[in-house]
């Protein structure tokens, strides 16, 4: 069966162990989780998770049911079909930059609307908040332009239904 990328958003109790419960459910049932982000909502007793996974239709239905079954899960929202706004934060640090490299990085930043947020000696730090796919492209671009000199940190997607 066809494996596709899916997204769910969870409203969960903001308690010790809930993150372990959710991630443990994925590993225990051999579900293929790709990213998970979590943070407190406007209500400090509730956290919201955004989970990206690769699965077929049948497994995905099971995953949603199993998540719903957890006492700590207040609500499961399927973002595969919903219209959402989804963003991921990405940092790229480039070391050993020559003057030309630095100019190149500023040009790339201008074209792709990235922010150069730190600059020390020969090292530049770029910040980027885009969709996961766009971020993939940015990483690929930097990898090609500055092979073996970049350091990448990605935050995983956060998502919300559109207004």
């Amino acid at each position: 069966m066809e494996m596709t990328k899916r997204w769910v958003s969870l409203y969960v109790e903001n308690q010790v162990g809930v993150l372990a419960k959710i991630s443990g459910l994925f590993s225990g049932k051999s579900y293929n989780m790709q990213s998970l982000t979590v943070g407190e909502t406007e209500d400090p007793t509730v956290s919201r998770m955004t989970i990206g996974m690769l699965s077929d239709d049948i497994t995905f239905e099971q995953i949603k049911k199993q998540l719903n079954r957890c006492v700590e899960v207040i609500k499961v929202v399927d973002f595969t079909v919903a219209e959402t706004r989804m963003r991921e934060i990405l940092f790229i640090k480039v070391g050993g930059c020559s003057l030309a490299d630095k100019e190149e990085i500023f040009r790339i930043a201008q074209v792709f609307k990235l922010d150069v947020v730190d600059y020390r000696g020969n090292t530049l730090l770029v910040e980027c908040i885009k969709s996961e796919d766009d971020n993939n492209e940015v990483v690929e671009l930097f990898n090609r332009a500055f092979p073996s000199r970049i350091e990448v940190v990605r935050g995983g997607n956060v998502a919300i239904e559109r207004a």
Partner: protein
Amino acid sequence: MAIKGTELFVKALIEEGVDTLFGYPGGQAIDLFDALYDQDKIEVILPRHEQALIHAADGYARSTGKVGVCLVTSGPGATNLVTGIATANYDSVPLVCFTGQVPLNLMGNDAFQEVDIVGVTRGICKYAVTVRKREDLPRIIKEAFYIASTGRPGPVVVDLPKDIQQEMGTEEYPTMVNIRGYKPNAAVNMRQIKKAVRLLQEAKKPLFLIGGGVNIAHANKEMTKLVEKTNVPIITTIMGKGAISSQHKMYLGNIGIHGSYAANHAVTDCDLLFSIGTRFNDRITGKTSEFAKNATIVHIDVDAASISKNIAVDVPIVADAKLAIESILDVLQKKTMEVPYVSEREEWVKQLLGWKQKYPLRMKQQKGLTPEKVLRVINKRYKDSIIVTDVGQNQLWTTQYIDLDENRQLLTSGGLGTMGYGFPAAMGAQLGNPEKRVIAISGDGGFQMNIQEMATAVVLELPVILIVFNNGYLGNVRQWQELYFNKRYSSTCLRYRKSCERDCMNPDKCCPKYTPDFVKLAESYDAKGIRVEKEEDIEKAFAFADENKKGPTIIEFIIDPKANVWPMVPAGNTLDNMIMDC
């Protein structure tokens, strides 16, 4: 007035109607046991091992329908519960397990007897929680009982740090529960029910497949009514056996790898599989791609996650079994619906009942002492009884040959298949049902996994009859080794001694003496024991056990080591591809 956490604990249990608590004390639970010392509403049972303790609570819960309650200390006390928690989780048994814990400020420090039991049990229970504030204690206990006993029941773990136990706080115990993430389904979708009823009326070859959900919902009367009203044949899983009297004309037997011929062929040939309260476990489906492949499948289950998990279902209905069956009966009552294929249906029923008659379950060995004969004696002798099995051949034979109805109940570890379950669970069942005859059926392997409970049964004067089918082997594995591993009896002979030849392949061989001697063992525990080697002594042994009303009796039946469980569906095969016997 402010009271200690331990006093609130006792108050909460009394409010929840707990009359029996299975407990084993220790450093981090000593305050709780001290508080229990002051009251006389709750009987505190002290088994000899925490694993047996939780199985006893499980047997108590399954046989009474009440929540089973455990109280153990931190660390090893808590980890010894793990197998029992998983056992209860698989078979949907309502338990609340309280575990002592080191004080909050020591948690995470690798303190003496500290284990993160909530972390350990997270994947094998319905809910697990550590109480971190004294003010939360009443609410959490209330929620624990509610979660354990509603929806699809299951075990809940409540971890109680020592300082929470000692802290002064509210004496209020809540009466209401409101958990925003947990709202068990209390209704049934009538549109789906009507759709299912229509399918039931219009099918040519309809069949009921009933799982443990119907027994848990106590919907046996309703189920019988439904079968009689629709005249549709019924098969069960092991956990569903007893949903209708096993003597009922329309009952064809268990489905599965050791199911009956009629049941397995019925499911293969039916055009409507009307299933209630089963999760289509691999033990019953055989090769899933071929399972009931000509059938439209209706599936009613209280747990949405059990629907279409293993087998794709055409009409899913999330509901409690009793509520759903009552709704079906309602629809049938109100509407006179046409049954368009009357003659086809008659033909179908005739065919199935014909198979049932032609291929009855019977052991290959007919001479001498056999488990089948022992079970037939139990059927005749103990009408009002609770039968509790261990796991292995003893369990399979029992689920094949025991007759169940409203007066005779079966408890068995069906999902997890926990050896060592039988005897302690029988003790729990006896505690909850003092007026009933409780019979534990074990093998010589499984009995030894919780043999220490002889002491508990003796001191509590529990008249449990403990049947040990002794074949000197771990028989179920031995059967597989005989059939699929060239008779290489690796680690299954319980008579094996160091002086034996290492690769003995002969269960018939003159072997070293069996150890322990179960009759002497019974005597050393101040219980009664009797060994039976001949068929004609079966009745006498039970008569001997019946005389012992003040304690347990072991009846050791020496059975043929080569006796196998038949019929059998070889692994990976379709259900109709059965070996009847060889």
